[in-house]
């Protein structure tokens, strides 16, 4: 790899805990849950076995004007909300024809999504069935395509160095950040807005996940439903939201006196080549992803003091990841699982959890894993529970794994 240093100078997010990064972080530190009963008539109509989800704390239409919002799928809306926040947080002004803080030819966007706009697809199909082609929106295709979130952000920011939208299921957001890192390291861009977005809480996704028996059915107790690493876990909770970071060449950030949250020092991306939903039983892909990230950063496992786990609260997945962490990093890192509070944001998860890992380094504080009452003995790691823990960190890994056997580990270091 090249020796171009990449730092994080801006953060943005909209999540089930809050409409921005500060409220999300404060919610995590306070130990709040973003999981709630889904208030929609279709839960009863289809008699769905899953009646809970981690829905957004703040509707994106509170900040996106009506006319713009009606041209965007919800997944695109959350991406724009997060990207605008990250852009402003980096100290950049609106990009216009007259003024740009970042030269468009040196600016990229890498925002992944798991499935893009399935709700648009279904809504428009209903219109086609009921009323014929005249009622089908001419915006159907741009609203449902999975590159839509990245493309809209790229247009708004006038990014001309390239727009990418990795689709690797629940690893998409992390792969978005890794792809942005590569764009800068390969010399294609100086600044990249990177992350992931998802907003697909709908009857068909809930039904599909329920049929795959991977989601929690603790319907009578939503706030305690997502419990990674706990012996009582029974599946993940589907969430929605987006995260975006501004990645910037370190020398460029230093020259403009930008605030630097952390350095992105390495990543690992591997694939299991094993099963479309199940993890490799020996965790070879997860272990390799963490190993690659550590090697790329020029570190050793003992340097990594913290792992922000993918841990979704599934019976098999959490234990497999714990074993992989012990093998790749050791039993010393302080571990936490933010999906206990946020639910599983699918394509948004890797980006939002990357931001949490960055803030853990920046603030020296690791949020607790909610609902961890009885640590599964097979986990055998130092998982933070009860309340947030103060830890001075020099390096942290954020893991994200996806259906399809995608494994991504991001390694952040203190700037």
């Amino acid at each position, binding site marked *: 790899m090249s020796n171009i240093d990449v730092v994080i100078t801006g953060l943005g997010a909209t999540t089930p805990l809050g409409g921005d990064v500060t409220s999300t972080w404060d919610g995590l530190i306070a130990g709040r849950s973003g999981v709630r009963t889904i208030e929609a008539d279709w839960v009863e109509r289809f008699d769905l076995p899953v009646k809970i989800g981690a829905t957004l704390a703040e509707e994106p239409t509170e900040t996106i*004007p*009506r*006319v*713009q919002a009606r*041209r965007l799928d919800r997944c695109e809306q959350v991406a724009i909300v997060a990207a605008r926040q990250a852009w402003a947080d980096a100290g950049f002004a609106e990009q216009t024809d007259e003024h740009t803080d970042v030269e468009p030819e040196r600016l990229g966007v890498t925002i992944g999504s798991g499935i893009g706009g399935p709700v648009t697809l279904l809504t428009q199909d209903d219109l086609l069935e009921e009323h014929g082609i*005249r*009622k089908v*929106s*001419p*915006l159907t295709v*741009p609203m449902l395509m999975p590159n839509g979130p990245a493309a809209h952000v790229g247009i708004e920011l006038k990014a001309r160095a390239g727009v990418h939208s990795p689709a690797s299921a629940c690893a998409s957001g992390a792969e978005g950040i890794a792809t942005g890192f590569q764009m800068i390291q390969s010399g294609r861009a100086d600044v990249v807005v990177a992350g992931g977005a998802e907003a697909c809480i709908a009857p068909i996704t809930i039904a599909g996940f329920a049929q795959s028996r991977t989601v929690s059915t603790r319907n009578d107790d939503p706030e305690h439903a997502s419990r990674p690493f706990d012996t009582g876990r029974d599946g993940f909770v589907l969430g929605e939201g987006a995260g975006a970071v501004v990645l910037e060449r370190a020398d460029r950030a230093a020259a403009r006196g930008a605030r630097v949250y952390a350095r992105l020092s390495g990543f690992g991306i591997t694939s299991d080549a094993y099963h479309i939903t199940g993890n490799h039983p020996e965790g070879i892909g997860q272990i390799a992803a963490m190993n690659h990230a550590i090697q790329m950063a020029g570190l050793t496992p003992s340097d990594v003091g913290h792992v922000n786990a993918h841990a979704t609260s599934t019976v098999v997945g959490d234990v497999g990841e714990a074993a992989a962490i012990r093998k790749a990093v050791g039993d010393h890192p302080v571990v936490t699982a933010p999906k206990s509070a946020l639910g599983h944001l699918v394509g948004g998860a890797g980006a939002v959890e990357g931001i949490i890992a960055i803030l853990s380094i920046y603030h020296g504080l690791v949020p607790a894993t909610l609902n961890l009452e009885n640590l599964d003995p097979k986990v055998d790691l130092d998982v933070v529970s009860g309340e947030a823990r103060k830890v001075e960190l020099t390096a942290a890994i954020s893991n994200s794994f996806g259906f399809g056997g995608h494994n991504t580990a991001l390694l952040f270091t203190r700037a």
Partner: protein
Amino acid sequence: MADKEEILSGLAEIVEEVAGVAQDDVSTEKSFVDDLDIDSLSMVEIAVQAEDKFGVKIPDDELANLKTVGDAVDYVAANSK
């Protein structure tokens, strides 16, 4: 048949709903594309809503000729039942 004033105000409501242009700005001499900044996708939506509202048919080859708000008002006035 609706008179042209009614058509203009009805059309202005549609344009505001679809494209966010203030109704007062939707006047007969304005070009949809050059003055009101309406793209081809929104034009399709506006045409479909206008068909429903005024009971007209606007085929695609006719839609391409409706450059200004006035063109659209005249077309609707001439073709509505």
